[in-house]
């Protein structure tokens, strides 16, 4: 890993700390209040705030996890750093696409 990947990985990690904390809090809140999925969706549908929130999360996690997967592959698989990097990138793109789709499904 070099300094550029490092900065991106750590920056997205730092960004995700509050994002994940809020997300987890929401889940706890939801289960406590016994909100149904319908209730939740009712609140998220059409909300720009939630759209932006989860959009940001998906962007961050895609970058973060792509770099993470790259690192693990480089160390734990026989792949070279370069190939691990390509696979990581691919993974990141797939994750971003799937994530975007899910966000759209939740928000729209």
């Amino acid at each position, binding site marked *: 890993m070099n*300094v550029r*990947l490092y900065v991106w990985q750590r920056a997205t990690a730092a960004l995700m700390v509050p994002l994940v904390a809020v997300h987890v809090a929401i889940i706890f809140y939801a289960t406590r209040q016994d909100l149904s999925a319908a209730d939740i969706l009712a609140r998220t549908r059409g909300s720009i705030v939630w759209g932006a929130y989860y959009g940001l999360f998906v962007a961050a996690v895609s970058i973060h996890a792509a770099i993470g997967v790259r690192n693990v592959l480089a160390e734990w698989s026989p792949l070279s*750093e370069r190939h691990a990097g390509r696979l990581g990138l691919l993974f990141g793109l797939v994750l971003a696409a799937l994530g975007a789709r899910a966000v759209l499904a939740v928000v729209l």
Partner: protein
Amino acid sequence: MLLWRIRTLNWNACLWQLSMDARVKPAHDEWNSAWARVDCAQIAASKPLTENRMPEAPTELSVSLWRGGVEGRYETYRVPRRDSQTVLDVVTYVQRHIDPTLSYRFACRVGMCGSCAMTVNGRPRWTCRTHVAKVAGSGRLEIGPLANLPVIKDLATDMAPFFEKWREAKGAFAPSRTRADAIPRIRPDSPARLAADAAVECINCGVCYAACDTVRWNAAYLGPAALNRAWTLINDERDAGNVARLQAVAATGGCHACHSHQSCQEHCPLSLNPTASIAGLKRRTALAYLKGELKP
């Protein structure tokens, strides 16, 4: 299983620390006054520390030594147990009295040269300063060559990759003055001096390098000792080589490859903290990168 493991590990560590604390540092004033009164006869009568540690010391050790190169096997020898005996002495005994072809490396025998490190009961250690009582309570020792380095023969490794990485990390001082200049005045308590001093006493023994799994997994990784040295130099206000050094430690295999396993810090015989040094490098390089001073 896992949780149980974690708990016992912590307990052991705590108990061990408590018992060490009790032995070496009771309240200071008490020490002072008490010792002033104790006469020599009493001191002489007190047993050496080793005997305290080992109530029923076995008279013989069962010692398995790695024989061969990368391929090889452990062979077991019986070595008499002594009061004053380091792991290096055990190895020496086998070479002098049992198998004259046993290969190992040492020089200073007092923890200064860093050439005697081996894997002792699974952990990398300096052998000349490791008392047998500390590691062979059960009377068994398994000694192998240091991990993460090519094996030359038996217990001796080739340390060349380790030093090569030290060089790659720009671990040599880059002068900003010459012998014709006066020696710079630097106050001993200035923050820069303290930072440069923090980890300067490394003896390049390779113990941290052997303990680090990132070194094992990532052939390009410079490793804790080389990075620790680079950080020491970055804090050295007399040095003029920081541009190249930051570049070197920010490249692939540099400080960012470290995952903060902290095994280096756990095992360093001089209690240095390479993890903290590497963290410093990460901060410094990230900052330089963000300011556009570094090209990855």
